[in-house]
């Protein structure tokens, strides 16, 4: 029942907003709703026993194998935690950095959260697909209405691009479902038991991977990302990078590793090569960006590249590290985009040229930013470090040289993040009229900083969630004929 509540709470709250249109209280209602969802997520976490849970199981369109099955395993729970923890902050961004009509914006964000919970709860491929595409709709409207320059062209391109990937996924799901014994079923448990012949897995891998690669995005399917992130309103960018990108990684584990494991194994060197190249490529590009937001967008792409590469190394460290990092990266991206928003709100532009020397005027903000930079460059005892360490280990066990390429990212990351920090905060005071971080901004950033410091100190709380499922995944693969 709790699982249904997770989908319904944000959905109903969103409907309520649309019907009642309480302009003044819209953010409050949305915030309460997300906190309620968070409480449910924490309840699920608290009652988690390490065994996969199926909450609801109903027939829907049995002839096509469509069933309404909701549940979660360890990895799914981690994704629920990610969504549950980050959305209050994403809604909260609206207090300080309002975008357009609060009723509509918050309703759209809540619908998006509802769909995201659906994605991570769905235990049936069709249901997954439906939620997967549903997440796009609210974001589409959010971007279309409140985006920046060239919003129409960029939004449509983003929408069509991701939809294209979705179609490939739909085709794959339909194909796979027809391969199941009668009566057809698209439940993950049934699909995972399927042993497709190698030549099928070889192509099926790509039709499925396409959807997830575009979603994350992975080089060379990334061209929608920097523009969209830059143009989108802050809250939209947060949802896109912090949560929606993770659907790609989650999908890889749920679909590719379960349904086409041999195909994934066969293509893993290609994927790792592409991902790592993309990660380095994005990190190098980030260095010379003159737009703060675009720089963060490229850094996000760089991180996704590393995560995807580590995922395909097929060992406990790589996969656990990636799964752990989804959460770390989500927290980091919310922090970074909030800071970008807060700074550009003050200076009136995302351009580094309009910043510089701000630390004199805003020392408290600079300190908060410094913490976030520490997390972004994966200093130990911040949340990002254990994930990166595990991913490097995963890469090393797969191949020494890929580990070398991966570890180069910590150098590049330090180069572009510290350069960005310098260009925003340091240097002589340029007498730009800015105010220091106020209480609202502290209320926003300090809890996030506490989260990433505490998780960095005790990463096991997250790692315990994924440890079992990852071992199970690896065992099921090694036991294949």
């Amino acid at each position, binding site marked *: 029942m709790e699982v249904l509540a997770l989908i319904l709470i944000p959905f109903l709250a969103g409907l309520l907003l649309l019907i009642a249109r309480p302009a003044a209280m819209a953010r409050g209602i949305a915030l309460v709703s997300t906190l309620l969802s968070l409480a449910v997520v924490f309840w699920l976490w608290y009652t988690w026993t390490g065994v996969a849970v199926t909450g609801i199981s109903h027939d829907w369109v049995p002839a096509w194998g469509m069933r309404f099955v909701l549940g979660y395993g360890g990895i799914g729970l981690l994704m629920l935690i990610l969504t549950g923890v980050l959305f209050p902050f994403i809604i909260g961004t609206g207090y300080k950095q309002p975008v357009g009509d609060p009723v509509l914006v918050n309703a759209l964000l809540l619908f998006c959260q509802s769909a995201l919970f659906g994605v991570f709860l769905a235990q049936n491929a069709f249901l997954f697909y439906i939620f997967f595409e549903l997440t796009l709709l609210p974001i589409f409207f959010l971007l279309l209405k409140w985006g920046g320059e060239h919003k129409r062209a960029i939004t449509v*391109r983003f929408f*069509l*691009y991701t939809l294209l990937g979705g179609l490939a996924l739909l085709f794959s799901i339909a194909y796979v479902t027809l391969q199941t014994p009668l009566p057809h079923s698209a439940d993950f448990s049934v699909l995972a038991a399927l042993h497709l012949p190698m030549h099928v897995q070889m192509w099926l891998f790509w039709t499925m991977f396409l959807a997830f690669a575009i979603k994350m995005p992975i080089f*060379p399917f*990334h*061209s*929608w990302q*920097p*523009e969209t992130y830059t143009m989108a309103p802050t809250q939209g960018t947060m949802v896109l990078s912090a949560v929606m990108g993770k659907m790609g990684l989650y999908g890889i584990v749920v679909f590719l590793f379960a349904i086409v494991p041999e195909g994934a194994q066969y293509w893993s060197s290609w994927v790792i090569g592409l991902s790592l190249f993309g990660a380095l*490529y994005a990190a*190098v*590009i980030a*260095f*010379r*960006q003159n737009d703060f937001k675009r720089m963060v967008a490229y850094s996000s792409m760089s991180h996704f590249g590393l995560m995807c590469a580590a995922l395909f190394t097929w060992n*406990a*460290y790589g996969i*656990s*590290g990636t799964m752990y990092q989804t959460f770390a990266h989500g927290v980091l991206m919310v922090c970074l985009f909030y800071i970008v928003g807060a700074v550009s709100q003050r200076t009136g532009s995302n351009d580094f040229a309009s910043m510089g*020397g701000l*630390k*004199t005027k805003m020392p408290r903000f600079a300190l908060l930013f*410094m913490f976030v930079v*520490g997390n972004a460059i994966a*200093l*130990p*005892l911040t949340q990002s470090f*254990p994930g990166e*360490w*595990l991913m*490097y*280990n995963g*890469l*090393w*066990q797969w191949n*020494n040289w890929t*580990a*070398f390429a991966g*570890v*180069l990212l*910590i*150098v590049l990351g*330090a*180069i572009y993040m*510290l*350069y960005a920090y*310098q260009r925003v*905060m*340091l*240097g*002589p*005071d340029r007498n730009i009229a800015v105010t220091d971080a106020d209480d609202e901004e502290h209320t926003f950033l300090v809890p996030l900083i506490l989260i990433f410091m505490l998780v960095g100190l*005790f*990463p*096991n709380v997250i*790692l*315990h969630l994924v*440890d079992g499922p*990852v*071992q199970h995944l690896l065992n099921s693969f090694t036991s294949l004929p």
Partner: protein
Amino acid sequence: MVKLDLLAILVPALPLLGVFITGFGRRKLSAYAAGGIATAMVALSFIASLILFLGHDGQTHIVHLFSWIHVGAMDIPFAFQIDALSLWMMLVVTGIGTLIHLYSIGYMHDDPRVATFFAQLNLFSFSMLLLVMGANFLVTFIGWEGVGMCSYLLIGFWYTTPAFNYAGRKAFVMNRIGDVGMLLAMALMFYQFGTLNYVDVMQQGGLMASGNPLIVTATLLLFLGATGKSAQLPLLTWLPDAMAGPTPVSALIHAATMVTAGVFLVVRSSVLYELAPYTQDIVLWVGVATALFGATVGLFQNDIKKVLAYSTVSQLGYMFAALGTGDYGNGMFHVTTHAFFKALLFLAAGSVIHALGGEQDIRKMGGLKGVTKTTYVTFLIATLAICGIPPLSGFFSKDGILASTFAANPVAYAVLVFAAMLTAFYMFRLLFLTFFGTYRGTAHPHESPKVMTVPLVVLAILSAIGGLLNIPHIFGGHSWLNTFLASAADGIGMHPLELSAGTEWTLMAISTALVLLTIWYAWSLFCKKTTLDGEPADMPFLKRLIAKRWMLDELYAWLFEKPFGWISKHFFSIGEEKIAVPLTAGTGKATLGFGEWLRKVQTGNSSFYLFAMMVGVVVLLILTYFSA
């Protein structure tokens, strides 16, 4: 055991507490309160270390706090290792740290962000303690990165000067390049041994054959990390720039403690290095080359702190040379004495700078020995110590290193002796130009307050008598420090020196005589008359090359920075703007264009539609016929 656990936790926890107090109270605390609290925390930490040290029973104690990273077969605990090596480093770090904190109260009291400064200094102490106390590579790595971050923050402490920020970034990035090696080494060792605990790694590694390629790779990668942190060739250019930070920072971080982290790491993994003779050779020659490099560049620098910075680089080279010959005891001994006299030199230089209101150019100093008496005397002691004049501390440590280098490789020995002569030359040039002759500046020099001179005196005493720690056998001593360190858990490899007493005496006499000769030469150049160097542009070619640091910065800029910027720019302008985005946009455009063309088929003429339909039916019929 409970007492030991508690003390071991207190040692890093106290400075961390100081970070919180001074950090959160940075707006409310006065400069003296913040400084006092920060100093007290490090001093208490020193006392805790001292108690641990005095109660040390020669055993290795692991203080296990909690399991930090646990995935599958990987279980990395957050644990401290208390043994001779970590205890010694704890004493050095907290001891020197206390003095420098104390000194900073005087040096920084005018700065509006003094509490922030002390918070960062305390954070540094905390990180450094984690580094030396970690029971596995990963906990050490926490401190390793932490000190790098603090170094970045403190170099750029006066953040309004872009050059300082650049220096901070450069330091951090170069350290990170070294960290690539460190991370890869850890991944390799974990892959090989399934653990990162020093005790287990050394035990398992010790069983492997000498020259095993895995060990060689691991040690080389670790050494890459050490070169970054300890400013060895090729990753040394950040250290001189790091002098942009406040002088106490230069003393604590960039002379006494952080830069010796690389030495510590190598000594910690000495079991592995003993099994990799190939790596040892590289360590030796990198050390020797760096010693020479630093000493040559130091000759013509005019910034008082830059001279000391290159001197640090050079002295670190000596330490690595010692490690390369397997003489870990003397390496650590030199770490200790160097911490004494180099911290003293920096603090005294800071006192001079303070006295002259911020002037750092030695061409605008001179004749200060009358005004700043304490500073002058302590500086003199430190200078004699670094030059290796008996019986000051530097003599014993440097001579130990020279002796073991002679035993290992006479060529390296010759280079090191030459570097020692250069050291004597530039140090006395510095001393004479600063304190002798007539005053050439415009400020009104004054002696520093007591809070600054007391640490100077303490360090001067330590620099003078520090040699007592490790008196070699030929002087009737028992090499106490070597013996003590050898009890460390992972067994620091010890090579009894295989030189006859006669050879040792000869070596000592040679180096001391040459150094004295050089001092006389420096005296004749800079004290009898005052020879000032102009700008590098006016110098002859070789001298100019040296004064411009062998063009290493320019070389790196040309080799790495420029190409990196170029690649970054063109990846974006070509890869993104010319290929990736147009490709997606092109897909859309192509679809549109095709539709534009195809819609012409809709002529609106019904007869044509009928005709098209008929053609279609006929084609389908033909297809059906042939496929059947």
